[in-house]
């Protein structure tokens, strides 16, 4: 037997003994665990295969001699054999070319990953879930949803308790305040282009006493027998906003308290009023707008 093989066998045996000792010596040993068994079997196989593969090539270096036909070129005295194309390699190469054609024409264009595609899928899934989950939402659930949307989108300006910021964002716990009413009478109101296309002309009333009376009347919540009622009718307010400020669809918004329609209108068109401009909220979907409407309505009741 060749000395090399003898050395290899001794080395293998030594490695296996060391493996056995280190595994057996560690706490629990193989522990009858299938994963541990597999790992040790792998280690044994690796040792044996490595040793004999190394021996094969070392032997080859010792005994092999060069043979075969050289190519024409000589690079500074170093030649190269003419090697046959390995069959396995050639098959792989051809298969790869077929795959490449498929990938260029079908694979990449039709199945490629795209960040925008993933985004679109995410949104579609979310919207579908939203649609089915909240299709028939009403009452308290709607108000709850409105509150959560309010906290995310409206709280920044109108505040946690919806009492606004003095002179910067409206208090939503009641429908109107005196400043807003007087501003609307003096300047008209033409904010709600979608739902109240007609708008309100300025200066329907010009006598300060009458304006005060109307303001008082609206602020009082349209109580019966109020002195402002007459001016409210005379100024033409009733024509669009109704006898008691109950509003008319497509003509004039409700004045006595918030309702969903009014809030949705504001969210759709934004609002430019006495204390500044509120942007429109296109990013809310219809259900969310309705929910915010329900929440604000619940606040002013």
């Amino acid at each position, binding site marked *: 037997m060749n000395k090399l093989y003898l050395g290899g066998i001794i080395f293998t045996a030594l490695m296996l003994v060391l493996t056995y000792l280190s595994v057996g010596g560690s706490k629990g040993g193989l522990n009858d665990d299938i994963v541990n068994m597999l790992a040790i079997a792998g280690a044994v196989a690796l040792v044996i295969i490595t040793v004999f593969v190394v021996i094969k090539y070392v032997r080859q270096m010792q005994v092999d001699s060069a043979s075969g036909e050289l190519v024409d070129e000589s690079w500074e005295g170093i030649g190269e054999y003419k090697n046959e194309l390995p069959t396995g390699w050639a098959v792989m190469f051809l298969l790869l070319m077929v795959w490449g054609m498929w990938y260029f024409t079908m694979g990449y264009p039709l199945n490629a990953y795209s960040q*925008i595609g993933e*985004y679109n899928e995410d*949104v579609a899934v979310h919207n579908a879930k939203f649609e089915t989950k909240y299709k028939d939402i009403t009452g308290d659930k709607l108000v709850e949803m409105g509150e959560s949307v309010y906290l995310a989108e409206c709280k920044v300006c109108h*505040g946690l308790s919806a009492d606004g910021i003095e002179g*910067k964002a409206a208090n939503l716990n009641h429908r109107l305040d005196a400043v807003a009413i007087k501003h609307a009478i003096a300047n008209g109101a033409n904010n709600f282009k979608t739902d109240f296309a007609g708008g309100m002309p300025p200066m329907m009333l010009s006598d300060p006493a009458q304006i005060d009376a109307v303001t008082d009347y609206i602020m009082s919540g349209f109580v019966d027998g109020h002195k402002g009622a007459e001016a409210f009718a005379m100024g033409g307010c009733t024509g669009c906003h109704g006898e008691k400020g109950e509003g008319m669809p497509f003509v004039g918004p409700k004045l006595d308290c918030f309702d969903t329609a009014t809030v949705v209108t504001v969210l759709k068109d934004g609002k430019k009023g006495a204390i500044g*401009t509120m*942007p429109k*909220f296109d990013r809310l979907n219809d259900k969310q707008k309705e929910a915010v409407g329900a929440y604000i309505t619940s606040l002013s009741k």
Partner: protein
Amino acid sequence: MFHWLEKHPFFFAVGVFVTIAFAGLVEILPNFAQASRPVIGTAPYSTLELAGRHVYIKNSCNACHSQLVRPFKSETDRYGHYSLSGEYAYDRPFLWGSKRTGPDLWRVGNYRTTDWHENHMKDPASVVPGSIMPAYKWMFTNKADIETAFAEQLTVAQYFSVTYNEPVPMKDGSSIIVKMGGSVAEAKAIALEEAKLIAADMRDQDVKDAVARGEIPEIVALIAYMNSLK
């Protein structure tokens, strides 16, 4: 030929370079040319907006605010549609930013208004309780640099063919014309017209008086720029 190349490493290297460069051109250029064109609805910055952009850069707003909405639902819910590369066609340089201490501002014009910005720049905590943004009071007295904005307009119009004084298509099918003055005086007059519209929605009497006198405080230019980000 391949044997010849094997014997001449220099030309071999040149060949490799040419091959890879050609592949690069084919892969990158068409998409790049397509994506860097302005999208429909993106208009060049007007004189006042450009002056506001300079104020934005001067005060390093981009150190805390990004201008890039990424395509994630959480982002588009908060800021609006994700950014498209063509929307930055007129941004020189773009102000994507790398960090959000404050929110993204790329579409702030959609959901904030002139008077909100006015309150906010004067005292951020008054409209955003708990905000850590500092006040920028000097913007209410410093004057915007219209000359530099006009110089930039002239430069980009001449060297990058930015379409001033020509119709720009909008999303709804209409078109708008962004004006550029023919002289410094004309540019200032155009900027002042824009400034008057902004100042009409503002509350600060000093700013209103300044605009009435024909001066343009930085805050007016900055708000014009903010409102243009949509």
